[in-house]
């Protein structure tokens, strides 16, 4: 995947509802997730990062994103665990270690249902752990519920407060 759509999405974010950051390296899962989110009629823009490094660069305005500076904080990060370069758990650690991103809700969305993965995710500060069901109907349902909860129900601290 090229970075083009991501940048376009990013540019379109200004003055719009907070984005959802989807960190997912599997294009099928990405597409299915986007499909499910779209079906749930959420208006929030969706930003996709394809690996851990990409996600951090985007959030902190570094690397390929250095010219455009730090992105506005997403309302929620949907984070896969098995990622190239930097794993989901490592991304989580870095997010929680940095005051700028420490409070962003992170939902671990993964195919794994290993006890270890669940424990490690929560230990590193995940807000939620959701296993991607194989059956698409259930998967779509899960994504829809996630969107509803984290984007509509959940209250976030003010942007200024989190930006310190």
């Amino acid at each position: 995947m090229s970075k083009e759509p991501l940048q376009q999405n990013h540019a379109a974010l200004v003055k719009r509802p907070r984005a959802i950051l989807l960190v997912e390296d599997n294009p099928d899962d990405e597409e299915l997730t986007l499909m499910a989110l779209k079906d749930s009629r959420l208006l929030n823009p969706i930003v996709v990062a394809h690996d851990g490094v990409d996600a951090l660069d985007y959030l902190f305005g570094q690397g390929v994103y250095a010219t455009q500076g730090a992105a506005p904080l997403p309302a929620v990060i949907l984070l896969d665990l098995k990622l190239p370069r930097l794993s989901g758990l490592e991304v989580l650690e870095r997010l929680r270690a940095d005051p700028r991103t420490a409070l962003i809700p992170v939902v671990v969305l993964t195919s794994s249902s290993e006890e270890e993965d669940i424990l490690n995710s929560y230990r590193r500060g995940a807000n939620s752990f959701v296993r991607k069901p194989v059956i698409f109907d259930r998967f779509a349902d899960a994504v829809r519920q996630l969107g509803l909860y984290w984007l509509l129900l959940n209250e976030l601290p003010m942007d200024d407060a989190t930006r310190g």
Partner: protein
Amino acid sequence: MDSDQAPRLASFPEMNPNPVLEVDINGKIIYANPAATAFLEGAGLSDPTAYLPGDIVEILRRVAQGERGVVLREVALGERVFLESISLNPYYQTARIYCAEITQRKKAELQLQQSLERLRGLRMISRAMLEARSPAEIVRIGLEHLVNLAQCQQAAVLLVQSGSLTAQAHRYHAQQGFSSLAEFALQTEDFEHLQVLSQDGMILHENIHLQDETLAAHWMVWAEGTQTALELPLIAHGELMGVLHLTKSEADPFPADAMEFAVEAADHLAAALYNARLLEQAQHYASGLEHSVAERTRQLQDALAFRQAILEAAAIGILVYDQDGQCLMANQTAANIVGASLEQLLAQNYHQLDSWKRSSMYAAALEAVRTFTIQERDLHVITTFGRDVWLRCRFSPFDSNGQFHLLLIIEDITGQMQKQAEIEALNQRLQAQAVRLEQANQELEAFSYSVSHDLRAPLRSLDGFSQALLTRYADQLDEQGRHYLERIRVGAQRMGELINDLLDLSRVGRSEMRRQPVDLSALARQIATELQASEPQHEAVFEIQDDLIVEGDAHLLGLALTNLLENAWKFSRSRRSASIKIGKYQQGKETVFFVQDNGVGFDMTYVNKLFSPFQRLHGMHEFPGTGIGLATVKRILQRHGGRIWAEAKPDQGAAFHFVIGGENE
């Protein structure tokens, strides 16, 4: 010669204080001066011929023959002794006798004579006694001399044994000779008497009447008719050896000199007896000593033999080297261990042994000698005699009688070392196996992870995009096309279930067991509620016994119970009034739990396939399932140390019985 002179001259003999007599050739006293008469009367005699010596006839014959001269004679007159100077006077045919009293001189001479005799006697006694070998012999010799020298009828000795209550008597009678009396017991009064005697030094008995019954028992040594007895203690070095009895048959007291002699003789006798006793004791000691030396020697020999036997019997090799490294001693075991003869070992000096230098036995020996400490080593040695062995060596330096020695104890541990090597090899193999197992486990875990993560994703794609096709492109698909897409979806979903069940099964083996009390009743009620909620149209009655409390891993037991109840639910689905019972019963010492349904049951012919993964007894279209559930249940119960078995009949329900098990995993 003047006529005046005749009376004057005649007065000389008259005035002489010594007797002067003249006797004619016929032996008739023709003159005796007043002194002669006075002495005669003093001696209670009247006949003056008492003055004449025994050989007066011969002397007068010589006068008659005209011989001149003077002869000297000693004549005793009563107690008085006179030295008579007899002048032969052939002219007048007389002999004139001039007496000088020598009574005192004679007495002194006699006494001297007697003293000498007694001294000789004592010396004889002493010598004889010194040569004597036994107290009895001493006594015999002593008594014989005493009877003669002390002029008594009998001498007897009562020997008292020190520390004993008995005495023995020996006696020598002037006429009857030597005799010994049997040993006899002393009475209390005898001891009292002996004590008095020891204090007084001597007791003289006079006017004895032997019939007198009051006499002490030991006086029986006296001869019959004894009237006078002298009793003397025989004391040497303050010790009472016995009593000497000198007895006489006449009521004649012992003269003072005889008593003195007796005292002295008693001393000699006591000393001789004492010496004899000492000698006897010395001989006794000597023989005792000889005996104990022999005994000790025998004991030492026994001990040496004993030690040698131990040395030889010992299963360890024992060698001793001197300070120069020369072998002094070795046992047979040592020889066997190194493969040598004892002679070969004893010829060795360890400074010259290559085998020691090669195996660092030499270094250990030198270390032990240098530091005077025990050195222990397990060493691989090829001995001088070609044996290839592992030796447990202990070098102990020690000093014996100021000489340095090195004790070496060797033990053949070749077998041990071989076993140890085998064990080590086995351990290594086990460790390698454990590593491989660990690797396999890690691989399995990685595989499980991949299965759970990577294999699900494509399934999700299959299902997801089929769904997308079905919803978004429904109008472009005919019935057949939609059916195919549905089949793809069902396949993907079934594979998803398979993966989930497989993961459950693999987790049962991998997860850590946490034993705690688990309420199976509560668990069963919870699962039943969920089942009923998931399929409200299926009416089933759950009968769940209370207090099904067990010890085990809550998560795993929950998984097992879920599988069993899901099965019961599934296979009783066709029943109008389905009944599912969960309970327990006692079988011997075991508590058996059961899940029973009244569903379709199964044919017991295939019961052995029931608990193997992927084995199914029912058609997929009839009762969908992965065939992994019961395998998982069995594995869970196995991990708890328990077991499961089933009972069923086709169309008559099934019952699963299980035992949770004890402490074993």
